[in-house]
């Protein structure tokens, strides 16, 4: 929509700029704080401009185990990455197959299956956290990657989204493929996957960020620093007892923790938007 009113244009841009500024300010403050030394930070008010200790702060975090955590930030990032990727890929794989079964196959209790999946939308991790913990503990999966990933791997949202997309595929396309000799797996691989790739990309972005931002679950089941994720570590860094909070480390870790999700969005933005707004047919 475009109106021929220069004043309106100006006002909207101004509003946008203010909005952007508001959102960007905390990030900027975190960034500047991460480039000062600890003494600097405690001697002065929050700095608005970059300091001179940036490189050394980041280098220290990456090379040496962080005080109070027992591991370096690279390890934390790697753990988060494994968990987020595992959750995103796992969720997509499972939802893809679940939606495929629900839409394209006739089997008894098909509708019931769909509604059972749908109902789990109402049961997020927090609601079922105690029984889930029990199960994971019994399976000896505490402090392990599978323990971080598996309980979060099923997704009603993704199943529902893919189901809605599959329903728009004309039945003749399925029939044409059957006549062309494509069995169920080949149809999935040759027709369905290529057609749903933008949806999958959009889901990947959402699910990756969901996985990366998990806090409560990893906090509960990881006691070993080798499996600590970066988001959980941020909170740990703040609880120092009597010692001063190392704000330069906290902010630098936060900056590093922001990196991968931002990268994923930047790289997949095009597909992300496409997958959410249009269906390719």
């Amino acid at each position: 929509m475009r109106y021929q009113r220069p004043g309106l244009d100006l006002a909207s841009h101004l509003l946008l700029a203010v909005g952007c500024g508001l959102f960007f300010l905390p990030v900027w403050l975190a960034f500047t704080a991460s480039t000062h030394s600890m003494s600097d930070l405690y001697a002065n008010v929050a700095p608005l401009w970059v300091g001179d200790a940036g490189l050394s702060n980041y280098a220290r975090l990456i090379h040496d185990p962080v005080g109070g955590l027992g591991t370096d930030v690279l390890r934390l990032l790697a753990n988060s990455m494994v968990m987020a990727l595992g959750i995103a890929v796992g969720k997509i794989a499972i939802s893809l197959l679940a939606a495929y079964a629900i839409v394209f196959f006739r089997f008894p209790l098909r509708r019931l299956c769909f509604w059972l999946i749908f109902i789990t939308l109402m049961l997020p991790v927090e609601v079922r956290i105690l029984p889930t913990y029990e199960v994971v503990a019994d399976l000896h999966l505490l402090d392990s990657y599978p323990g971080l990933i598996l309980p979060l791997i099923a997704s009603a949202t993704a199943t529902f989204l893919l189901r809605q997309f599959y329903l728009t595929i004309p039945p003749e396309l399925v029939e044409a493929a059957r006549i062309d000799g494509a069995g169920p797996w080949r149809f999935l691989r040759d027709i369905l996957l290529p057609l749903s790739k933008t949806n999958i990309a959009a889901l990947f972005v959402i699910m990756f960020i969901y996985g990366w931002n998990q806090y409560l679950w990893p906090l509960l089941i990881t006691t070993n620093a080798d499996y600590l994720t970066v988001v959980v570590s941020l909170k740990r860094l703040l609880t120092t007892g009597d010692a001063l909070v190392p704000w330069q480390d906290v902010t630098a870790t936060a900056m590093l923790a922001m990196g991968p999700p931002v990268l994923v969005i930047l790289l997949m933005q095009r597909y992300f938007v496409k997958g959410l707004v249009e269906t390719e047919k």
Partner: protein
Amino acid sequence: MATLQLSALQKRYANGFVALHGVDLAVEDGELIVIVGPSGCGKSTLLRTLAGLESITSGELTINERRVNELEPAERDIAMVFQNYALYPHMSVFDNMAYGLKNRGVPKDDIRRRVNATAELLDLGALLDRRPRQLSGGQRQRVAMGRAIVREPQVFLFDEPLSNLDAKLRVQMRLEIRRLQKRLKVTSVYVTHDQTEAMTLADRLVVMNAGRVEQCGTPMALYERPATRFVAGFIGSPAMNFLPVTVHGERLRLPDGGELALATGLESGSELTLGVRPEHLVALDEGDATTDAGAVIRATVEMIEPLGADTLAYARMEGLDELLVVRLHGEHAAGEGSVLRLWLSPERCHLFGDDDRRIEAHHATPVTGARG
């Protein structure tokens, strides 16, 4: 090259609805059979059971004398052209045509050769790298045909392939399909609800109604001797006029009180339906002599539809609720409100009993008086 045999083919859906009540049909090698009927008559279901997309409840389907009831669509060696083309949107024209061959494990060189040859045949050579969305309706239609042809199947199945095209293109593609089918000599079954398409394409026409085959024969045979009132009304455009008549000895009493010499052998008082096509009602000019052999109907024109070569007149006949449709010459001067004298020739009349089946009648020729 293949023959197709349907014996007592029945299709009952899980909800109990019977879509096909035992269809028998034998399709000769290289023949183009057109199945025509109103929507919901089971013609698409029949085609889909032939394709293997629907299971067969009972009866037998054989292709080249091999029972295929239980075979998957891909194993039946058939190809199908869908109404909405059903091209794979993410594949190029080449890949669309090649996909079936690829799945059958045809060597790459063979695929390329066959796709190129088919593209040549259909004038698609320049479009092979395009995606379906970059093609016009007619081009998509040709790709869908190409996808069927390239497989070199035993049987082609067409499911209303032209109904998404505009009128001009439809005529063009109709000729194209006819030409290709004659050239490739592949046994074909073609489903349509458009009776013009059906008449022009078919070697033999199958008219279906409510899950049953009403009549099967050449288009002209169905036009000239429809076996049931349904076929009579369905084949031919505009549709046949139907008049309720009563038997009076060797004559029939028309709704307006007139009589027509037509011997049925039925007892007097029997009520029948007389059918006559709009093109077989001859408008008489003043002073035209009539013979005994026919009846003259007087009807008042209520509406005129000029089509150019012909003019359709909708006329009111005494004693008849519906308007009589008459096909006049384009130059005919009939105006709305004018009275037409229409000559009804017994040779052009079709009679149907109360079971809607055709009744053979004998018209007495006035010269000899004998039954013809």
